């Protein structure tokens, strides 16, 4: 079903393309040795290069290049062995050099594609136009003093990847799913931490609307949207605004807009006429970046398993599509699951992790990264069920005990005497006792009241304080009642 927005004159399609700025995970900046940690004292992570001092020169940080290549490989994209850094010239107080070093004409990564899964289970491929490296600017603080602005250059020179998509998305959901997928891939790769609230990832959202079957109409760019939810809201708000303009006989002007998250509307930032002339030209301080295919191959060989591959592998293990999706959503969750499932029945492991374990995390407001139960102990719990030491019911009881103190389930079983009874003679003795006490019901059962079987099971388990092996209890009862 095509997503459309209803105007007064009929339905409109929405066309969306995203430019995502993702901060490269690295110890040092793109062209200087200064550190990149988030939340440091203002201007404490600034080299003379980052501050644009006279005679200072940029030197490419090889790790940032490797991270961009890894990301490109993760996006199934073409890696350009020859790329170049250009200068984007403009004046601003937090841009110390008076230009940003970026890759305008020759990006390091070319066309690629990612597949997103939508809520209805369908998938869609979103094209990647390019990925290029660039430096971030510093930060202007206008609210610290009534008449002065303050500048923090900690971010100045930090490496960013700009990932540009094709205008392939057609709904807020698709835009959100695409952004989430990019974030997921980069977190798997360890190339961007994806922390949108710390500014590690932000998106410029290009939106236009059109009638079904039409070519593209003029688009507007909504700048610097910093959460997946806001991206989805901004798409709809901007699309509705444009529909109103077109339907009232106006023309949408190409311009840059901002999303007002409080009011849920976009506001004009600058029009095409005010657009900067950035006077791009190749940075003469940096020779072209030339990569060797062998080095790229090496990076490729060292890539971790990506979410799509991992999901496929889980499906092959017999996991449901839902479980595979949920378990691969975060790299950390998948790692936890893998440890639980290692050498064990994958489906049983998946059931426990997505079932009781996730429920416990929700209840305790914890995450996999600060898990109350270690994967090792959860795995041992599965072993105790597999070898018959614990019934499913007993296992849940042991699990609750594990949540309180992450102890080995074996120790809990011993301490609390929760081991299930698998000695058939012991079970037979209890069953005989139960049947003797309920002779009337035995008679009813034998005369056809089959439903009473459950009653006998319940009575037996009660008498055994829940420790009877359910299969054995059933078996003995069937035999005795036959």
């Amino acid at each position, binding site marked *: 079903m095509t997503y459309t927005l209803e105007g007064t004159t009929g339905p409109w399609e929405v066309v969306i393309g995203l430019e995502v700025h993702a901060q490269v995970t690295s110890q040092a900046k793109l062209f200087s040795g200064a550190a990149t940690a988030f939340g440091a004292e203002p201007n404490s992570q600034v080299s*003379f290069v980052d*501050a*644009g*001092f*006279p*005679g*200072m*020169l*940029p*030197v*490419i940080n090889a790790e940032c290049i490797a991270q961009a290549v890894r990301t490109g490989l993760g996006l199934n994209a073409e890696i350009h062995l020859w790329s170049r850094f250009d*200068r984007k*010239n403009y*004046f*601003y*107080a937090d841009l*110390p*050099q*008076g*230009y940003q070093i970026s890759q305008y004409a020759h990006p390091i990564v070319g066309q690629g594609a990612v597949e997103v899964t939508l809520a209805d289970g369908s998938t869609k491929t979103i094209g990647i136009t390019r990925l290029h490296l660039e430096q971030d600017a510093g930060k202007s603080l206008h609210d610290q003093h009534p008449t002065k*602005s303050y*500048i923090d250059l900690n971010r100045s020179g930090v490496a960013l990847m700009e990932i540009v998509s094709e205008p392939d998305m057609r709904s807020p959901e698709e835009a959100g799913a695409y952004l989430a997928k990019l974030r997921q891939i980069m977190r798997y790769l360890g190339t961007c931490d994806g922390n949108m609230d710390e500014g590690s990832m932000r998106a410029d959202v290009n939106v236009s609307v059109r009638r079904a079957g039409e070519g593209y109409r003029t688009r507007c760019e909504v700048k610097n949207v910093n959460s997946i939810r806001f991206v989805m809201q901004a798409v709809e708000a901007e699309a509705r605004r444009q529909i109103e303009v077109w339907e009232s006989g106006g023309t949408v002007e190409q311009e840059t807009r901002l999303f007002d998250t409080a009011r849920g509307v976009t506001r004009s930032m600058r029009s095409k006429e005010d657009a900067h*002339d950035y*006077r*791009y*030209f190749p940075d*003469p*301080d*940096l*020779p072209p970046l030339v990569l060797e295919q062998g080095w790229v191959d090496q990076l490729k060989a060292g890539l971790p398993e990506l979410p799509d591959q991992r999901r496929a592998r889980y499906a092959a293990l017999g996991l449901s599509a839902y479980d595979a999706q949920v378990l691969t959503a975060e790299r950390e969750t998948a790692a936890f699951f893998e440890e639980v499932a290692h050498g064990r029945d994958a489906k049983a492991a998946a059931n426990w992790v997505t079932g009781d374990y996730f429920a416990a995390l929700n209840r305790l407001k914890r995450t996999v990264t600060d898990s109350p139960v270690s994967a090792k102990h959860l795995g041992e719990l599965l072993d105790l069920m597999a070898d018959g030491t614990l019934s499913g019911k007993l296992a849940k009881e042991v699990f609750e005990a594990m949540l309180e103190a992450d102890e080995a389930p074996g120790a809990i079983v011993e301490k609390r005497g929760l081991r299930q009874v698998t000695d058939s003679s012991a079970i037979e003795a209890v069953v005989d006792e139960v049947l003797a006490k309920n002779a009337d019901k035995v008679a009813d059962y034998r005369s056809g009241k089959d439903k009473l079987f459950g009653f006998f099971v319940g009575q037996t388990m009660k008498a055994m304080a829940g420790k009877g092996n359910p299969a054995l209890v059933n078996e003995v009862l069937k035999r005795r009642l036959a």
Partner: protein
Amino acid sequence: MMRPTDLTIAQALDALDRREVSAVELATAFLDAIERLNPRLNAYITVTAEQALETAKASDARRAKGEAGKLDGIPLGIKDLFCTEGTRTTAGSNILDGFVPPYESTVSANLKRDGAVFLGKLNLDEFAMGSSNQTSAFGPVENPWSRANDPAKRLVPGGSSGGSAAAVAARLAMGATATDTGGSIRQPAAFCGIAGIKPTYGRCSRWGIVAFASSLDQAGPVARTVEDNAILLASMAGFDPRDSTSADLPVPDFRAAVGRGVKGLRIGVPEEYRIPGMAPEIEALWQQGLDWLRAEGAEIVPISLPHTKYALPTYYVVAPAEASSNLARYDGVRYGLREDGRDLKDLYERTRARGFGAEVRRRVMIGTYVLSAGYYDAYYLKAQKVRALIRRDFEQAWEKVDAIVTPATPSAAFAMDEKQDDPVTMYLNDVFTVTANLAGLPGLAVPAGLDAQGLPLGLQVIGRAFDEETVFAVGGAIERAAGFAAKPGIMA
């Protein structure tokens, strides 16, 4: 014993070794000369007398312990485009008002490492933009030479390294650092009757040198002899991981190459350098130089560098384009001059209007224009294409010759009140020198004779990339044959 200020660097190193002179005596002699003559010549912007005497003292102590470096005790001047830690660095501009770098440029640090004594910071055209040293915010430098028929007429020393060349010629420094973006080492060296080499692009690190045009800028020395240039360059050069355009190559023994001779070398003579209206004296000197080399066993080969005539316009697109971007950082926000304004834009406009002189503003405007949307292809991109053709011209020439010899400048030094009305006339000074910058090749200016007014004239030797040794060999041969011994009128 010669007067200390008359010693060449080679002679001074020997004299220091033999304890005939001390570093302190050398420094004192030069500081005295500076005190006497600098008020007239204005070659130094900043004199670091105290620091010079201290380092000279330390140098003598090192030598006494047998730990002297390659240049220990040699008093040098530093062009004020090199950042010097703790010493004001101006780039000849008001915009860097009060700027004291917290770091030392790689080239000057290399000289310090080898024991050189710094006398002070030398005057230059503002941001190295000029051919007469008249665009400096610290006033013009005067050429220590003057015309025989009009000795009162004050002449320019050339530019942009005018302070460096004038100081060395007048014996206010034994040698000096300089930079060359379009001829800024070779033209002032020729105007002042000394030698200077712009090495291959990438030979010296640009780290810590205030940038003019990054793809063209290259540091080099000026000194009275070719051998002294070889000694200085050996200390200045070398790979620097902090400059991505610096060449990771070993530094050869330049000094050994100076006396190597030219026997069997093929010397190219580009027909395109015979420009209309060239002074007959220049033309005669050029021929004379070629005759000397032939007499020494070189083969003279006519060659063609067909795109030469486009070199100057190409240069005046590429250099201002890069400069317009390189100078954007001087915005009054973090260091240097700040003129407060109503808002950020006003602050920029006031600061840059007051901080930059007319020539810098002109080039920033030209550079901004040629990079602008709609003009980029016609100017900047076209210039890059022509630059590639100029480079190819040379590559083809190297199949036939080992070095190229041309005049260094189209004329001798001109007077301070000449060529002021039209910037293009001024730009013509670079006509013989810009090609080496555009192609990244080494170029050496050697004093070879005097014109009718007794002013020095120089020849230029251009060599293959990273083959400064052949350039020094040819330059050394010209120097020996010319026996240039004339001295400027103003001299310590």
